[in-house]
Structures are given as structure tokens and as C-alpha cells.
């Protein structure tokens, strides 16, 4: 009896510790972000174009440019990763022979374990020059580059979760479609993908979560120009990159310091919403 109580208590402490750490991080973000708004209005912060915190006379703390940059890079990544990921998943579940599947699956998983700095490196030495040649610009470090790299990083998530979703569609649905004269394509597009849609949606959301919070890759490959981006060929600087670049050098307890925490908080709200939505989607049924 007593032993059981002790074990129970240990698990309780364990669980609580995790929750406390998480809440602590959240509290730290909020506590350090709030003082920023003594000097900046929320409106200027959220809707200002110019981020120039070290300006001598009037520093500006508008994050709109980096929010748009983050969204551009993320959406670009999803535009690449979602069709490719679902296509690959469909190929692996429906078309590939068992042998191909056995080889391809571990490869996809290995893709997930490539360190982001290596992917960023590939962005600089491989994708960058290639994009520069393609667009005729002097540098290929821009939003497309980031999108491509983030797509590569999101793909394993999208592929393996979509594959699980497609694989768990009951065989009876496939049989019903085949018996009605449906070919493989029609069965996939009109029966299997709709039947697996919540799992596939969740896969995409989680892939998005992976892309939006990624730092090192976009820091290396996107060019880091703090200007408002007008095209995918513009160099961009995302929220994550801004925090990573500046937080190391900013003097403590200045408005700039607090503003970086506020940026972190905004990012946290983004990822939190994405995870929340994907959670709701997964548990809808």
C-alpha cells in the first residue's frame, strides 16, 4: 500500500515538474515582454513596418516585416511540402511495391534527422547559387531559398503522418470503389484522401509548426534583410532569425531587449495556435 503511494507521488511530482517548467517558460516570456510596451504602443509594434531598434534618435520596433517574412517562408514551404508530401505518402501506400516501401520509409525518416545547420549549409552552397542563376540576381539567399529548405525539413513529418492516415483507411472503402469501376487514381483522390482528411490536415499543420519555428536554416539561407518583403525573390528576415541575431548582443533591460521577448511571444502564440488547431483536427473524430 505504502509503496504504491510513494510511486504514485513520484509520478505526480514528475508530471508536475514538466508542467511547471512549461508554465515557467511562458511566464518568463510574458514578464519580459510586457515592459517593452512602456515605450512602444501595441499598434506600432504589431503594424509597424520598420524594425530599427538601435536607431540613434527614434528607434522603431515594428514587427510587421518579419511577421510577413515568417509567413511567406512558411507558406512557401507548405506550398512545396504539402503536395509533395501527400503525393509521396500516396505513392508509398498505394503504388510502391513492398520492397520500395521498405527502402523509402527509412530514408524519409533519415531526412528528419538531418541537423538544421546542415540544411542551411546546403541552402547557401547549393540552392542559393542555383536560385541566383535562375532569377538572374546576385544572390540566391531569399524567401524562396528558405521555403525550399523548410519544405525539406517539413516533408518527413508530412509524409509519415499522411502515410499513417492513408494507411489506416479501411480496405473495405478501397474495395467498394474498385468494385464500382474506380481506378487507382479515383479511389485515391475521391475516397482515400477524403477519408483520411483529418489525419492529412493534422500532418500539414504539424509540418507547418515545424517550419514556422525553425531558426538556423532561415537565418543562414534567407539573406536577413530587415526590409518589408515584396516578392519571394526578396531577402527576408524572419522573427526567429531576428531574435537569434540580436538577443546575444542586446544590452539587458533595455526596450530592445524586452521587444525581442515580445517577438518571441508572438511566435509562441503562432505555434501555439497551430498546435491547438491540429490537436482539434486530430481529435475531432
Amino acid at each position, binding site marked *: 500500500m505504502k509503496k504504491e503511494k510513494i510511486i504514485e507521488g513520484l509520478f505526480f511530482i514528475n508530471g508536475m515538474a514538466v508542467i511547471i517548467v512549461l508554465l515557467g517558460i511562458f511566464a518568463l516570456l510574458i514578464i519580459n515582454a510586457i515592459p517593452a510596451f512602456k515605450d512602444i504602443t501595441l499598434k506600432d509594434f504589431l503594424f509597424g513596418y520598420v524594425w530599427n531598434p538601435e536607431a540613434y534618435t527614434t528607434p522603431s520596433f515594428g514587427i510587421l516585416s518579419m511577421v510577413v517574412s515568417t509567413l511567406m517562408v512558411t507558406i512557401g514551404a507548405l506550398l512545396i511540402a504539402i503536395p509533395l508530401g501527400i503525393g509521396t505518402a500516396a505513392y508509398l501506400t498505394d503504388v510502391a511495391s513492398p520492397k520500395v516501401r521498405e527502402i523509402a520509409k527509412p530514408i524519409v525518416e533519415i531526412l528528419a534527422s538531418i541537423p538544421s545547420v546542415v540544411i542551411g549549409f546546403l541552402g547557401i552552397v547549393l540552392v542559393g547559387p542555383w536560385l541566383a542563376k535562375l532569377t538572374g540576381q546576385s544572390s540566391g539567399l531569399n524567401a524562396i531559398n528558405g521555403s525550399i529548405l523548410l519544405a525539406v525539413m517539413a516533408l518527413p513529418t508530412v509524409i509519415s503522418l499522411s502515410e499513417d492516415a492513408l494507411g489506416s483507411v479501411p480496405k473495405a472503402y478501397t474495395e*467498394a470503389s474498385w468494385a464500382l469501376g474506380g481506378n487507382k487514381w479515383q479511389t485515391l483522390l475521391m475516397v482515400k484522401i477524403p477519408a483520411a482528411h483529418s489525419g492529412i490536415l493534422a500532418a500539414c499543420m504539424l509540418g507547418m509548426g515545424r517550419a514556422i519555428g525553425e531558426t538556423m536554416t532561415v537565418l543562414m539561407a534567407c539573406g536577413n534583410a530587415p526590409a518589408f518583403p515584396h516578392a519571394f525573390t526578396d531577402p527576408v528576415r524572419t522573427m526567429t532569425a531576428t531574435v537569434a541575431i540580436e538577443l546575444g548582443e542586446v544590452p539587458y533591460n533595455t526596450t530592445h531587449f524586452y521587444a525581442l521577448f515580445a517577438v518571441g511571444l508572438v511566435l509562441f502564440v503562432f505555434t501555439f495556435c497551430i498546435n491547438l488547431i491540429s490537436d482539434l483536427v486530430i481529435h475531432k473524430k
Partner: protein
Amino acid sequence: MNKVEISNFNFYYGQTQCLKNISFDITSHQVTSIIGPSGCGKSTFLRCLNRMNDLIPGVRMDGVINIDGQDINAPQLDVVSLRKKIGMVFQKPNPFPKTIFDNVAYGLRINGIKDQDYIDDKVQESLKNAVLWDEVKDRLNSSALALSGGQQQRLCVARALAIAPEIVLMDEPASALDPIATAKLEELIVKLKEKYTIIIVTHNMQQAARISDMTAFFMQGDLVEYKHTKQLFTHPDKKITEDYITGRFG
């Protein structure tokens, strides 16, 4: 006229032989019943006729099945167009997780039919034929998965009829139906044979006797006896057939 000709057909799941040297012909515009104890290979046989077993890994077969004089297992045969002329009602109801309407319309849509009025008419007609229309006409756009088991079964009948097949395969289509729906379904089957060739698996002897022209009795993968339904039920050739249909079996 023979619609389906089966000769020396064997079927194996891996090492286990499930159908043993089956040979018989199925006449068009007739109802043919397949009866036999559970596990004797009735569903397997039915699924061979529209090549549903292609989906199962590790199966093997030999012998010939001809439909309209064409070997359906020939390598050059287009299996999709074969299946288009064969409707199938599976033993377990398997409606798509779509609306009732979309379930019935699916077969039409994948055949490239876009005319919405035509689809509406066909859906209604098929649901009426399957004796389901009155129960679902007010909720065509709700999910088919919310229907009861018997309703789902009739929905699957409607879905198979909508594509206007030449052959209709039915695997115990009345197993989850009440006597009234069963009677109506039987009525439909008898009516359908004017246009279609119908092959039905049933565990209900009276049903086989009522609706079918020919009856095949399977046992442990063998075709024991195949003849006119009346004869089979009144003067079976084999002792074992008699035992089975009179319920003295096992």
C-alpha cells in the same frame, strides 16, 4: 446464353486451397444462388468474378473464368472496365464515409457523368429500387455512416445498381434486413433479372428457393451440385446436398 463460364478453376490463399476445380456456367438474365456452409468459399468465389481478390497479397489461381466469352484473368484485360459492368454488394456493408447521396452518386461520377439532373434522377431511382428511399429522402446529405446496419446494406445495393451493371453480385444482401425489407429486396432481385444477371450468396434456403433459377451448392471449396433450383431442392442428386438443405447437416 452463358454470361459466365467457369472451368477448372482453383483458388489458393497462400498454401491453402479455397476453391477446388470449379466448373459451371451461369446463364444471363437469371438469378443464380450460391449456398453452402460458412467458410466453404462462397464469398471468395464471388470476389473472383470481379477480380476483387487482386487486392489481397499472396493469392494464386488457375483455370479459366470467362465473362461474355472473355477470359477475365487474361493479362491484357482492362480490369476497370470489367468491374464497371459488374455491380457488387459486399458481405459486410461498406458505405463510404460520405453523404448518402454521394455514396450512390459515386459510381456515376467516376464514370464521368456531370449532368446533375441525371445524377439526381439515378440516385433517387436506385434508392427506390433498394427500398431505402422513404427512409432517407429527407436526409440525403447526412453521413451514410449514421445509418443502421440494414440501411447501410440497402445503401450498398443502391450504390451497386446506380452504375447499371450487367451482372450483379450480392453477398448475403439480406443478412441484416427485417422480413419486410427482405421481401422487397427479393422482389427487386426478381425484377432486376429482366435486365441483369444476378448471382447471390445466401444462407437462407427458402430465399434461394424463392428467387433463384439455378442453385450451386458449395462445400469445403468443392462445387457439390449445380442445377435448377426446383430440382436441387426437391430431388438433390447427392445425399450431402439433401442433408444440407434439410438442415440435418453437421
